[in-house]
């Protein structure tokens, strides 16, 4: 008996010891393992947007009905989605970035937080006053405000615990991304590629907000936390060190200081490799003639050590961008077979229209294929050099300023923007919301003024010609072969993040405002018209034995900026075209979270 209990103690003590070892870690990784929660914006560290819940399945999804709704009372675009931990939901709003803690029992508001922010930040937000949601760890809620303040709140009371500022809106720096909690750190980025800001990410101590490390996308090696001898990149068919001054030598003079390469996307983290993955945005300006060179490391996939920030490997997808194909989209970590071989892969659906499968350990380029057949700016990615083969007639650089380059696919919105795809470990496939839109693009000469848009191009967009006439598709993708499995046409671009579940249901929202459930073959099972267009991400959770699915409605995207900025001409704001003066009144409802469940039998 005593021997037995000693053995038991041994097990328990080991568990305790293991717990003690990782005491510095936050609890969020553990919380994401319980599918009743939705503890991170992407559901987990891998950006899977997948849930093990299966009460709602492909047979009964057609019965889904409204369980409850919640209005944020804020207009404009509602991106991201709620977090659910235990019996509480945490929900954010666009500027002024309200935070609500909502009881799942009766939807009463436990607490509300509304930061005081200078509204002059609004006109320097390029693409509407969106916010992509909150993060949670160790009893704290993290909010990345528009004015670049990162704040930690007590999850029980909503009281401020600490605050730090990570940028300066006066020079066009703003923030829209969710904070990412990896281990004992909170990571955040910066927006403002349209204002010539210099992109970077910062890692903060979750307890104090203190900056642990900061890594720029452009500039001198030490400021990028890059080791010329150890940071690797795909070179001539194999991995090789980047060498000294890998960024500096790809810019003219000190243009790298206004280089863009912002970091407002969805990061991921592999605990075994202790590596964080994220992408960088477009180089500034949009007029490529003004910034000769590859403009490194804009448009790049970064792999960094979480503890030190040192770059392990980098891969630039669109050297010398000529179309605003930001590389910030989600980095999805999946262990899949690539060309028959099991790999620890990183899968990334880039705005440039190529879906990349990388070896996330080594950084090798494995697959780069178009995930919309209309993509035409490059014929293919040369697998030896890793460079896209640009088609001369779609090169806005070759055609030059004040020349309208016509028929470029995709448009500057990309074949996909930030709205995150979903990965189902059950099928090994990726479910991807996409744009099916082409553009005419005309760059012009521009001077830099701090805090002013540094865009330098006008563009006009239209549905991909000679196709189904719609502006979007929802697709299933095999990242191991680089092939499309199916594609479901949509009338408008799909700007909502997807969700897959163990019930073999795939959810996504549309700009008409439909939340749709489809089966694994893309067959529509159910749709429901919510109050407004959906650009939020679908989430699911369980409370008291019942599975719920929720999504934010509230379109806006880049809406209202013309009004807020006091612009009077349609083309003044950032490639903005046409009139916004009669801003639709229907938005009075504000953003609404609509929550669905199966009816009681």
């Amino acid at each position, binding site marked *: 008996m005593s021997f037995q209990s000693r053995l038991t103690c041994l097990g328990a003590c080991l568990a305790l010891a293991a717990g003690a070892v990782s005491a510095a870690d936050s609890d969020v990784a553990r919380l994401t393992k319980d599918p009743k929660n939705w503890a991170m914006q992407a559901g987990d560290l891998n950006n899977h947007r997948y849930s093990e819940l299966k009460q709602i399945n492909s047979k009964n999804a057609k019965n889904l009905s409204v369980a409850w709704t919640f209005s944020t009372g804020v207009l404009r675009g509602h991106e991201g989605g709620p977090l659910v931990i235990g019996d509480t939901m945490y929900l954010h709003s666009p500027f002024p970035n309200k935070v609500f803690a909502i009881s799942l029992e009766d939807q009463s508001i436990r607490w509300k937080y509304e930061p005081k922010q200078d509204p002059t930040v609004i006109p320097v937000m390029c*693409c509407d006053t969106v916010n992509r949601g909150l993060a949670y760890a160790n009893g704290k809620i993290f909010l990345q405000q528009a004015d670049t303040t990162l704040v930690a709140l007590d999850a029980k009371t909503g009281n401020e615990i600490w605050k730090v500022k990570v940028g300066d809106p006066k020079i066009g720096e703003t923030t829209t991304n969710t904070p990412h909690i990896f281990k004992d750190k909170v990571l955040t980025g910066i927006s403002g590629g349209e204002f010539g800001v210099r992109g970077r990410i910062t890692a903060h101590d979750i307890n104090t907000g203190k900056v642990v490390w900061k890594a720029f996308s452009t500039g001198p090696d030490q400021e990028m936390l890059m080791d010329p001898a150890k940071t690797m990149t795909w070179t001539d068919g194999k991995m090789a060190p980047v060498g000294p001054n890998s960024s500096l030598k790809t810019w003219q003079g000190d243009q790298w200081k206004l280089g863009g390469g912002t970091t407002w996307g969805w990061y991921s983290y592999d605990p075994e490799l202790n590596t964080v993955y994220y992408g960088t945005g477009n180089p500034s300006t949009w007029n490529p003639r003004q910034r000769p060179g590859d403009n490194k490391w804009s448009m790049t996939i970064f792999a960094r050590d979480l503890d030190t920030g040192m770059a392990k490997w980098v891969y630039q997808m669109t050297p010398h961008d000529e179309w605003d194909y930001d590389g910030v989209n989600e980095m999805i970590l999946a262990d899949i077979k690539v060309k028959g071989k099991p790999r620890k892969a990183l899968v990334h659906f880039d705005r440039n229209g190529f879906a990349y499968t990388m070896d996330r350990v080594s950084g090798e380029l494995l697959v780069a294929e178009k995930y919309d057949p209309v993509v035409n700016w490059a014929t293919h990615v040369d697998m030896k050099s890793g460079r896209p083969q640009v088609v001369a007639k779609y090169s806005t650089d070759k055609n030059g300023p004040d020349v309208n380059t016509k028929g470029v696919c995709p448009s500057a919105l990309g074949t996909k923007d930030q709205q995150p795809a979903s990965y189902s470990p059950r099928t090994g496939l990726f479910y991807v919301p996409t744009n099916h839109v082409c553009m005419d693009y005309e760059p012009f000469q521009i001077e830099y003024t701090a805090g002013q848009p540094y865009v330098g191009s006008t563009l006009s967009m*239209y549905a991909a010609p000679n196709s189904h006439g719609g*502006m979007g598709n929802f697709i299933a993708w095999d990242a191991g072969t680089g092939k499309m499995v199916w594609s479901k046409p949509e009338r408008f*671009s799909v700007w909502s993040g997807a969700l897959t579940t163990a019930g073999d249901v795939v959810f996504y929202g549309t700009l008409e405002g439909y939340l749709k459930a489809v089966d694994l073959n893309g067959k529509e099972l159910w749709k429901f018209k919510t109050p407004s267009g959906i650009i939020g991400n679908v989430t699911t959770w369980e409370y008291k034995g019942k599975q719920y699915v929720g999504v934010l409605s509230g379109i806006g995207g880049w*809406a209202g*900026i*013309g009004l807020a900025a006091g612009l009077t001409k349609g083309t003044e*704001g*950032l490639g903005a075209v046409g*009139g916004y003066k009669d801003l639709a009144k229907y938005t009075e409802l504000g953003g609404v979270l609509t929550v669905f469940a199966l009816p009681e039998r």
Partner: protein
Amino acid sequence: MKPSRLLLLMSLAGAMPAASAAPPAHPDDFPTSGRVEYVLECMQKHDGKYEYLYKCSCVVDRIARALSYDDYVAMSVALRNQSLAGERGGLFRDAASVKDMAGKYKEIETGANKACAVPQR
């Protein structure tokens, strides 16, 4: 600006007779929630006056006889989002296919408003 405005007028005028022709077969499939949503918004636009319960119901019933619910949703969204600013709004403003949807919907709604004595707002 002026020539394009003229063109728009001409295309609207051109489209008018088509609208008054016999409407195509349609399922009259608006869900109750879709009709209620329309009426609520329409009433709100007219200061919540009770008479608009009847007038706005009249409008949505007419629209439902002219369009399937799916087409109505897409076309009304196309019209609403004409006023979205920025690059994303360009998706709605620039694209001929979307402008076309918006234009047709506006025409149908204007006709229904007229028939139901609802002033255009």
